[in-house]
């Protein structure tokens, strides 16, 4: 249908025709870029991703290289030495100092970026996939299956998260992979609940009924109609969930249940240095700052995404 436009409005008509249809993704990106916090968070994350990708080039030493015999004068737990900040030129530079096993802390923190980002994405990816499946199944099937699955999720949610992951790690055995698995399992209920809620609210919408009337199979309905429309809250929760996963796995590693030495994981670095805190605070400080900054990045971006995806903002 065409709308008759008076000649005086011809210009406006041109604009209307040239305007591209609004899409949720373009709106979201626009909203996101308008939020200072989200841009800041995204910048931090881009920085960490770059560090992770180029870790080999950025690091001055190997993450597990012991400097005894490699470098003359490398002292155990030596504080940071940076020539620009007044450290004697005769000494070798160690931006973040040297740890208790005579390794370069800067290189370990840089390589830790890789491990922590991988932990965050893998753990949350696992939780989202399993959680989405459970939630979609429960919401779509309804009835007894829904009840059973959701009560199971309630039980998982009833445990304090860290405690349940500790209990799971005791069964699976310590190690980085098992710690990730434990944190992933503990995170499942959140995504299952979100997915189920979305499925239930979308299931009865007209466009789904129309699809069904056109002969779409149950699987097709779920995968092509329902899940894409339920993605928004999952993306937001997933971003915030990565922050949580990075923190939780670091906490398990700190307790000695996750990454095992000599792996350069931030939590385990802090855990190992805990008893030398008073003698060598730099051993805790630098991995601690890296951990807090990366978590801050995910948190800011997640909060920003939540606001950006809120249609009330598209004024």
């Amino acid at each position, binding site marked *: 249908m065409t709308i008759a436009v008076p000649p005086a409005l011809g210009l406006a008509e041109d604009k209307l025709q040239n305007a591209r249809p609004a899409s949720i993704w373009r709106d979201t990106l626009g909203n996101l870029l308008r939020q200072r916090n989200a841009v800041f968070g995204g910048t931090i994350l881009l920085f960490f991703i770059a560090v992770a990708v180029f870790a080999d080039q950025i690091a001055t030493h190997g993450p597990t290289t012991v400097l005894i015999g490699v470098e003359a004068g490398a002292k155990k737990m030596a504080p940071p030495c940076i020539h620009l900040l007044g450290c004697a030129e005769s000494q070798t530079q160690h931006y973040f100092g040297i740890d208790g096993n005579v390794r370069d802390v800067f290189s370990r923190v840089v390589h830790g970026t890789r491990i922590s980002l991988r932990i965050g994405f893998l753990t949350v990816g696992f939780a989202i996939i399993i959680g989405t499946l459970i939630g979609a199944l429960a919401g779509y099937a309804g009835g007894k299956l829904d009840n059973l699955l959701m009560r199971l999720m309630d039980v998982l949610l009833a445990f304090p998260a*860290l405690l*349940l992951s500790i209990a799971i790690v*005791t069964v699976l055995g310590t190690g980085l992979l098992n710690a990730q698995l434990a944190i992933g399992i503990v995170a499942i209920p959140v995504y299952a609940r979100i997915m189920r809620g979305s499925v239930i609210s979308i299931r009865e919408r007209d466009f789904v009924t129309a699809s069904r009337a056109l002969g779409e199979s149950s699987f097709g309905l779920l995968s092509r109609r329902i899940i894409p429309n339920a993605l928004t809250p999952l993306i937001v929760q997933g971003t915030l969930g990565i922050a949580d996963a990075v923190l939780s796995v670091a*906490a398990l590693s700190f307790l000695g249940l996750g990454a095992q030495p000599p792996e350069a994981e931030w939590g385990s670095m*802090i*855990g190992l240095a*805990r008893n030398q805190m008073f003698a060598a605070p730099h051993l805790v*400080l630098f991995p601690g700052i890296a951990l*807090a900054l990366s*978590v801050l990045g995910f948190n800011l971006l997640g909060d920003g995404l939540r606001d950006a995806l809120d249609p009330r903002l598209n004024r």
Partner: protein
Amino acid sequence: MTRFIIRRLILSIPVLIGIVFVVFALARIIPGDPCIAALGERANEQSCAEYAARHGLDKAIMPGIFRVDGQMEIRPAEVPATLVDNQFVLYLQDLAEGDFGRSLKFGLPVTDLLIQRLPTTVELTLYALTFAIVAGISLGLISAYRRNSIADVVTMLIANIGVSTPVFVLGLVLAYFFAVTLNGTPFELPPSGRLPPGVQVPALATVWGLEGLGGPPRAIIDFLSNIFTFNAIVRADWGLLGDVVRHMILPALALGTIPLAIIARMTRSSLLDELGLDYIRTARAKGLRERTVVLRHGFRNALLPVVTVIGLQLGGLFGGAVLTETIFNLAGVGRAVTEAIGSRDYAVIQGFTLVIAIGFVLINLLVDLSYAVLDPRVRLR
């Protein structure tokens, strides 16, 4: 209101059963010989046989499910015969008697260990929660009231950083700052333990001459007695109270910062939402003082989401307590659990996990009930 409470109580029963079942199942999935897991590596044939008989290890785990040489075996034909006669029922019976097994490492019943350790965690959590609520709500209020002022920007910046800083990093940094940097100044604070070395706290049961008492009442008195703040206040021992508080400040700051940040953010956004509503304009138009409008009208209605968020923080606090206790050398539940993992002390892990999870469900129940008090609409749902 009564109906609401009863319905909410009934709803938490399946969850409680589920928790017991999960902890039971986790214990049975642990690889290796359950006897060695429970009695330690040096258990001999005879003590193992006794243990197996006492805990019914030869019986079905669940109706029809057996474990033979470490492998799960399902025998559908034996389901009716093992419907009542199985390990899960035995486990429930033990629990009903308050028997959580014995700790290998400490040589104590897990219940006794709980009475020693749980008070520390409860005390720590309460200090941290109080700090988080008082400071968080105040900061949130100021932020919302002076929206976009420097105070607001700074508060929200601190809140964002606070929420992202791991408990164990913050704890170690605080310990360094207050114990090393401020060493010798009046602001120096002890970075470890609950009390100065050498200070003893008399048990309330002894003070009150109740040493003959046994059973649950005694357990409760011992429990309260180990909450040193309570103990000091009841006995009017102000010197001890000062020591206890000084030792709790750093752990409470470390543990309370994340909830503080979350509470502050929630208070701010919830109050801002309320302050934009019509009834606030009406209140202002009536000529009420701004303070009355914000505190009595807006804040009161903004409180519900804040209470929800406070309730949601409790699980995180328990988790954070594990880390805080490790850093500040507090002999609480969390440290008991991590130490138990190191020494494969499974009875402790299971007993503590179970008790904490059940406590957590009950606390969430209380949080739900508090909504009903705050918001009459909840009761009708």
